[in-house]
């Protein structure tokens, strides 16, 4: 065939050209930059302004960060080392890191105990948070609160054991009685647990001598970020079940339960958290005799839990209200009783809808734990504002300390928020 047109056509391409690269302006970083940063004159202007702002911010922060002093014993020594140059005095973090993390009174040779409890917390939380993990791990989760209590507070090992036994006895009584009626099981379980605790309390007092495996550390000696974390974890995990109960109570058709829930929720939501904390620390001391030492930590936990469970109840009520009425009717038509309907049909859907709201409350609650510094508990912020800034060595170091606190809180809060997004994606099996 090629001969046919040998005269009439001077050139026939017989192979395809190798693919050439796109022009420089149409590929790689140039294309991306042109399309995203300099698409229009307006965009170009904004890009330049943004670059300038970034430059200004970084040129202020980077020298401060990179030129920081990490080894000094006081602020004045820091300043001598820096000799007028810009630079942070991070030596305060090196000098006082134990106090920032554990408070200033936790015995320093016992730091491994809260640290171990912190590591174990992740093991215990994992099966709750990630439901692909083997269900058997939940057994450890159930034991963890008692183990963590013993690790952090120390004292006789029998105390957490008795508390655990009480819970188990209560659960067994509940399982036994609940087949007849839910209320019977509920109150029977509580009564059985209480009886076990009271008897166990006498046994503990009678058996345990002054010496114990782990040295006892009173609540007053807890502090630093450990305190924030403990308050946050305890209060969030307690307030979710209470919040669910309150939300269901508010929807109940029984007037007493309904009004108790409504009054509780509305009262707690109408009072600032800081007021509740003052009541916990100051007013309760008037009501109890001077020697009856109801633990301040416990008082604060009760108050924060009440506060956040009222908020969580309202979030969950929103989730319940969002469910179509047909879901309730479907549950009824299947012949499920109230507890079954809630457990199998209503709550799984309502809680899924409520996840963003619950996470929002949890993050807020975790940060609100810093409010305990106003009732002279030395949490992270309390340590910074009180002892560290009031020491002659470190008075005047603000940015480094508060920046460190912000970093610690950011890590946890960002982690919670990322987890909740994963959870929402994971659970998104519906029509949305």
């Amino acid at each position: 065939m090629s001969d046919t047109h040998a005269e009439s056509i001077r050139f026939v391409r017989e192979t395809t050209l190798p693919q050439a690269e796109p022009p420089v302006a149409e590929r790689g970083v140039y294309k991306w930059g042109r399309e995203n940063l300099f698409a229009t004159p307006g965009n170009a202007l904004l890009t330049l302004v943004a670059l300038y702002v970034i430059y200004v911010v970084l040129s202020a922060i980077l020298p401060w960060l990179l030129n920081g002093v990490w080894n000094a014993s006081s602020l004045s020594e820091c300043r001598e080392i820096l000799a007028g140059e810009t630079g942070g005095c991070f030596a305060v973090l090196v000098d006082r890191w134990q106090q920032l993390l554990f408070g200033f009174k936790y015995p320093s040779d016992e730091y491994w105990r809260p640290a171990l409890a912190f590591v174990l917390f992740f093991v215990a939380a994992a099966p709750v948070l990630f439901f692909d993990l083997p269900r058997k791990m939940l057994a450890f989760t159930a034991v963890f609160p008692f183990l963590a209590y013993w690790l952090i507070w120390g004292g006789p090992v029998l105390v957490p054991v008795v508390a655990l036994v009480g819970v188990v006895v209560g659960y067994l009584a509940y399982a036994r009685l609940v087949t007849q009626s839910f209320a019977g099981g509920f109150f029977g379980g509580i009564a059985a647990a209480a009886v076990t605790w009271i008897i166990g309390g006498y046994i503990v007092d009678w058996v345990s001598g002054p010496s114990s495996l782990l040295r006892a550390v009173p609540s007053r000696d807890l502090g630093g970020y450990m305190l924030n974390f403990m308050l946050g974890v305890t209060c969030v995990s307690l307030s979710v079940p209470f919040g669910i109960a309150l939300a269901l109570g508010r929807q109940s058709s029984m007037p007493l339960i309904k009004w108790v829930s409504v009054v509780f929720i509305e009262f707690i939501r109408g009072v600032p958290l800081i007021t509740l904390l003052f009541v916990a620390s100051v007013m309760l001391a008037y009501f109890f005799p001077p020697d009856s030492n109801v633990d301040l930590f416990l008082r604060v936990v009760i108050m924060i839990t009440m506060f956040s469970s009222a908020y969580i109840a309202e979030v969950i009520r929103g989730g319940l209200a969002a469910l179509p009425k047909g879901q309730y009717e479907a549950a009824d038509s299947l012949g499920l009783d109230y507890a079954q309907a809630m457990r199998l049909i209503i709550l799984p859907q309502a809680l899924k809808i409520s996840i963003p709201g619950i996470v929002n409350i949890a993050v807020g609650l975790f940060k609100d734990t810093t409010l305990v510094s106003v009732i002279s508990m030395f949490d992270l912020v309390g340590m910074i504002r009180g002892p560290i800034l009031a020491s002659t060595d470190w008075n005047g170091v603000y940015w480094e300390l508060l920046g460190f606190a912000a970093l610690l809180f950011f890590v946890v809060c960002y982690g919670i928020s990322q987890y909740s997004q994963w959870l929402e994606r994971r659970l998104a099996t519906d029509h949305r």
Partner: protein
Amino acid sequence: MKKTAIFGALTIAGLAAGAAAAGTLDDVKARGKLNCGVTTGLVGFAAPDANGKWEGFDVAVCRAVAAAVLGDGDAVEFVPTTGKTRFTALASGEIDVLARNTTWTFSRDVDLKFNFIGVNYYDGQGFMVPKALGVSSAKDLDGATVCIQTGTTTELNLADFFRTNNISYEPVPIETNAEAQQQYLAGACDVYTTDASGLAATRATFETPGDHILLPEIISKEPLGPLVRHGDDEWGDVVAWTLYALIAAEELGVTSANVAEIGTSTNNPEIKRLLGTEGTLGEMMGVDADWAAKAIAVGGNYGEIFAKNIGEETPIGLARGLNAQWTNGGLIYAPPFR
């Protein structure tokens, strides 16, 4: 802490019946620890060090009382209190004595039902200005901008002072001492005013303290001292006379270095009575005969405590001023030990 928090909550009702009615002195002895209210942290006056041990001018009073009663300056449970919680902590019996640079005022003494048992620091409101301003007296401050903490007595004192001297000023309201430092250093105000000891402590944290001066005028009276509850005079006496013992020790030349032997080697009968080598002063008060010697041995006499925590050798660098012994023209004065 034998009982868990749970058991504690369960047994509140049972404990509520058995409130103690004995005197505070007996309570402290039975407990073996003194519960002493301090600040959550104030430079030089009370703050825990890197090892968690409380130190400071107010802390020294607590330790001296503990040594006088219990014989051990470390037998103190320091209860940190804020400006808001301090009075309820004392009134509710959570603490035995409050040593938290608290100003002695009529209403606190009478209306809140406390007894101020003495003064361990005479403070007063002062002014700090940059040296570059070229001002040497507060009366030259006509038209100045003044950083002032809102809602405090210092605000009212300031208004009074400027009105009496017929000069004008422009207030810059701020909330906390930390904010004041930043505002003042940033030049938002020409003058910063608060208690003179606070000004000195603040200035000590500046990069160049030498560029700032405290003006000589002190425009208010702020007598700071420890206080106890109304109605337990035996306990009030113990705290008061422990403080007086520290003050008298400085006047009589008893120091932490010589307290061990001066009681026997001296010929001064008042020193002998003070240190318990003669007379029965301790017995009258219900404590050991050598109570004052133990109190002085912990941190030294008043002058030593002052010098160690807030004196001119420390970064805070406060001069004795009003807090000198009366023999040196100050107001610090102990009644006779007789």
